[in-house]
């Protein structure tokens, strides 16, 4: 054993410089895993510890309907005898707000939260300027607003703000508020008013969307039983009960998933490093054949020699992984110091967590080992008679051990991916996907290298020699193609998707598609709104009747859902759906199954469903769906399935459309998709005038929403492009390593060429051409594969039309070629500088 350890150490001492680059790749991946896992674990630690503050209570009971006496009685009964209870009630709704000053033609959608004096039960509302919050600020029509609303509406503390049909005075600016989801989607900035003022301002009229919450603070030991009891009480209703523990669990789950997916990115880089290691081990061993033969001649068994190199690889893997932790720590230093802003922000640790470090190191060492194992098996076939005469050290016949080990490595890598993603399915998908991409890149590389082989017939010396170099024994051509190509692949793929997505969004707002949606129009307001829109936009607007309903039962051949619990089990089927009724299909609709009604009203309920409902929930023509509209059950028969072209949303899209004749008498309201004026001032005036005339009507400005979406898309693409950049960087590092690895050969060749009369310039030209060709090939392969990825994602995942961004693709090929040529030339500086005699003597 001491022999193995000593030899491993001595070999490492001699070879680490040449092998360093490959372990640097491991380091980059390990660093990414350690940093990403740590930062999310730190965030999770902070957030989960604050779960009570996040929901501002121990238990939250919430409903989309005003509290009925029955519900209140249930809660009161449940609280009877559980000891001291503090309770608060809040109401949340989205509506429009505008400055009271008529000179300011501005209006914004805001998220209103009405709170009572007991709120919050945990945490505190923090105001700007260090002012203390007290409920008194909200009395007599006081309002607290988020800072962004002040700039958006050009108002200040002390000014008037009209919400609904009431004017409030801005009494403070909210810096932090408990009970608000971190990073969740929001319709607009938060404003806080007194709970009674929500109804008082006319925000709870029929059809408006509100969330009613009862918050409870009880003794900790009572929480679990109380939650269970309340859940049982409200089993077959849509009243939700959650405790801070549920929040803790949900948050924990979300963050864990994010952590796992992100660390897959690191894993891809590590695996890429592993491929580099595999290739470099092969070359390294090629140079070690004599030493291995000597060891065998001196009495070392195959197992001992194999052990020497396995230990050596592990040592380098460990060193690379430790270096990776260093990189990860440096990366973490760039993370924000705190979560949130203001005095209530939560301090965020910059430390790598022990769990993340352990995992990352384990993966680094494991990948180094796994990927070097197959090439190292060649040690078995090295015979000591090699020292007496030159001979090949190949196995005769089929080497089953080699195949077995290769299979083991594949299984282990898939296992690692599954472990990192904490899902076998994702692990398999990533493993197989990565395998296919690698195989394709490798095959393409092989093909292109074969094609360049013809260049050796070119009479121009540098080109001929560059082509010959790409085929020299022990060349790293395919490895570099793979590594650099993979980087280019990610970047081109992502860029192509981004270009197509952004173009599609630009088209969508163009022409005559609606870019403003009016919602919550009351029945008696519909004619007035219609007239106003017609006058201001010059078009005849469509005002569409809608109702909100929940599905409470499904009876069909394939699916039978009898209780609300069943429906909840089907995920999004339990949400509240918006329905409409009309006699005809819209222009963006087609029937794909059954028959659409003939336009005449019928008193038998008939419903047409969108095809995704059929696919996801196995509901088909002939089935019966029970909808509950304001407590009234309606059993409707599915008579047709529609395909809706969602991109052409002029008429809005509805999952469920009813035949006229049933819903007209049920209370409903209207929405109106409108093509607003293009002029910014005219848009603002229209929105404001609508809000002045109809305070309960909300306007969703699609242009603003699209701006937000565009921002999100940019951020996401930036994030994924960073991954591509990381992979490309790894590819470049592998390139440098490959150059260093084969440098001894190159230096020797250059020395011979120089002795034969070649100038340094000529040798340089050969090098530039060699790497130029390599870079061009890598660029072409990456760009081609990336375009295919982009096409597939664009066409089938986000389903928008595909156009090849030819300029970007060509640019990526040129940039990759130039990058590889420059890096290759720089890494070969010794080759050009070296004096021939010294080199030849050393050989």
């Amino acid at each position, binding site marked *: 054993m*001491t022999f193995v350890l000593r030899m491993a150490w001595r070999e490492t001492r001699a070879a680490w410089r040449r092998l360093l680059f490959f372990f640097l790749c491991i380091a980059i991946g390990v660093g990414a895993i350690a940093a990403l896992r740590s930062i999310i674990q730190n965030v999770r630690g902070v957030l989960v510890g604050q779960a009570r503050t996040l929901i501002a209570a121990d238990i939250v009971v919430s409903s989309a309907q005003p509290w009925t006496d029955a519900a209140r009685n249930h809660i009161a009964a449940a609280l009877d005898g559980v000891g001291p209870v503090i309770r608060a009630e809040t109401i949340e709704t989205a509506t429009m707000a505008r400055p009271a000053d008529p000179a300011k033609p501005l209006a914004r959608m805001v998220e209103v939260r009405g709170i009572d004096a007991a709120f919050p039960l945990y945490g505190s509302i923090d105001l700007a300027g260090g002012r203390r919050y007290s409920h008194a600020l909200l009395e007599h029509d006081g309002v607290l607003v988020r800072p962004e609303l002040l700039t958006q509406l050009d108002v200040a503390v002390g000014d008037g703000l009209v919400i609904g049909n009431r004017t409030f005075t801005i009494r403070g600016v909210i810096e932090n508020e408990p009970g608000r989801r971190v990073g969740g989607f929001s319709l607009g900035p938060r404003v806080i008013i007194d709970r009674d003022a929500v109804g008082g301002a006319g925000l709870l009229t029929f059809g408006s969307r509100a969330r009613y919450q009862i918050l409870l603070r009880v003794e900790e030991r009572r929480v679990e039983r109380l939650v269970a009891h309340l859940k049982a009480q409200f089993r077959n209703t849509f009243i939700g009960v959650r405790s801070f523990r549920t929040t803790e669990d949900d948050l924990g789950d979300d963050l864990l998933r994010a952590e796992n997916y992100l660390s897959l990115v690191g894993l891809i880089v590590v695996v890429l490093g592993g491929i580099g290691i595999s290739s470099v081990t092969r070359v390294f061993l090629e140079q070690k054949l004599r030493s291995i033969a000597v060891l065998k001649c001196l009495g070392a068994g*195959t197992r*001992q020699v194999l052990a020497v190199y396995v230990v050596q690889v592990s040592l380098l893997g460990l060193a690379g992984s430790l270096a990776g932790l260093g990189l990860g720590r440096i990366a973490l230093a760039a993370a924000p110091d705190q979560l949130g802003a203001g005095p209530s922000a939560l301090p965020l640790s910059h430390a790598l967590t022990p769990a993340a470090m352990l995992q990352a190191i384990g993966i680094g060492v494991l990948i180094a080992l796994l990927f070097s194992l197959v090439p190292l098996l060649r040690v078995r076939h090295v015979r000591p008679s090699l020292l007496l005469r030159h001979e090949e050290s190949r196995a005769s016949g089929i080497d089953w051990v080699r195949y077995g080990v290769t299979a083991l490595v594949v299984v282990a890598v898939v296992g690692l991916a599954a472990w990192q993603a904490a899902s076998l399915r994702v692990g398999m998908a990533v493993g197989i996907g990565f395998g296919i991409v690698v195989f394709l890149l490798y095959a393409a590389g092989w093909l292109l290298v074969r094609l360049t082989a013809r260049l050796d017939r070119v009479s121009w010396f540098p080109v001929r020699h560059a082509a010959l170099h790409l085929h020299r024994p022990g060349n790293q051509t395919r490895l570099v193609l793979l590594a650099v190509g993979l980087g280019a692949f990610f970047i081109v793929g992502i860029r192509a998707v981004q270009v197509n997505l952004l173009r599609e969004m630009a088209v969508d707002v163009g022409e005559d598609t609606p870019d403003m949606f009016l919602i919550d129009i009351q029945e008696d307001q519909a004619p007035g709104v219609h007239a106003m829109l017609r006058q201001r936009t010059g078009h005849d607007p469509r005002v569409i009747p809608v109702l909100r309903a929940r599905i409470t039962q499904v009876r069909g051949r394939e699916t039978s859902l009898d209780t609300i619990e069943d429906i909840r089990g089907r995920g999004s089927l339990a949400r509240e759906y918006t329905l409409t009724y009309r006699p005809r299909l819209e222009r963006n609709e087609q029937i794909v199954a059954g028959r659409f009604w003939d336009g005449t009203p019928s008193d038998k309920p008939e419903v047409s469903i969108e095809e995704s409902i059929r696919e996801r929930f196995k509901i088909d023509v002939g089935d019966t769906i029970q909808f509950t509209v304001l407590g009234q059950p309606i059993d409707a028969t599915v008579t047709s399935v529609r395909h809706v072209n969602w991109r052409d949303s002029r008429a809005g899209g509805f999952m469920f459309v009813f035949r006229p004749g049933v819903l007209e008498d049920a209370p409903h309201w209207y929405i109106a998709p409108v093509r607003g004026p293009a002029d910014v001032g005219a848009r603002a005036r229209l929105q404001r005038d609508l809000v002045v005339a109809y305070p309960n009507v909300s306007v969703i400005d699609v242009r603003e929403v699209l701006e937000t979406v565009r921002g999100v898309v940019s951020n996401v693409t930036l994030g994924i492009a960073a991954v591509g950049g990381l992979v490309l960087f790894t590819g470049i590092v592998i390139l440098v390593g490959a150059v260093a690895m084969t440098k001894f050969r190159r230096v020797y060749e250059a020395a011979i060429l120089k002795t034969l009369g070649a100038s340094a310039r000529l040798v340089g030209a050969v090098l530039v051409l060699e790497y130029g060709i390599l870079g061009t090939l890598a660029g072409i392969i990456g760009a081609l594969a990336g375009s295919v990825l982009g096409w597939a994602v664009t066409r089938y995942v986000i389903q928008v039309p595909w156009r090849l961004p030819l300029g970007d693709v060509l640019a990526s090929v040129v940039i990759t070629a130039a990058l590889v040529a420059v890096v290759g030339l720089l890494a070969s500086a010794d080759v050009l500088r070296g004096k021939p005699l010294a080199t030849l003597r050393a050989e």
Partner: protein
Amino acid sequence: MIELRGVSKTVVSGSAPLTILHPLDLFVPAGQSLAITGPSGSGKSTLLGLIAGLDTPSGGEVIVDGQDITRLDEDRLARLRGEKIGFVFQFFHLIPSLTAFENVLVPMEIARRRDASARARALLEEVGLTGRGHHYPSQLSGGEQQRIALARALANDPGILLADEPTGNLDTANGQHIMNLLLGVNRQRRTTLVLVTHDATLAALAEAQLVLRDGRADRARSTALASAEMRPTP
């Protein structure tokens, strides 16, 4: 003691089988020095490789210290070489990534000798390279490298020392130095020495000579060869 019984070696070269060594009987008593000579391609190195168990014969038995080594697997052969056979090559074959001292150390580490360091120092002294132990092979001259290789071959005190053209890559003075060391070892330690050379003067220094020609022993020109029948009965 080395004994070969009808040992032959045939390889397939292209499509036709090529016999490098025709069936050969040879007996080398313990402590003897034998020089194998002959022109290039006469099978000298092949024969040496077969004796060391570096290669498998196509026929016959190779008996080293009473053990038929043709029946051993690779790992047991390696152990046998480590314990009983020292090897010196024409091209030295030092491990380039190890220092001279470490090169000498390796066989003793493989054999797990406890006195490895002390013995390696003593061996370096014996070959006159005490001060060069920390140098890497590339920093040593050819003669120095071969002396290190000799020290390495002697590390485990083998009963048999095999040398393949040990002076073939050295100038006359260095060649003489190495030859003196080899013969000195043979005489002082009673180590069996088999050396391959095509230098007639060197060959003449050995007690016995085997001359090979086209893979056959040229009995007429060989001298002082012992016969197996002469060996003492155990």
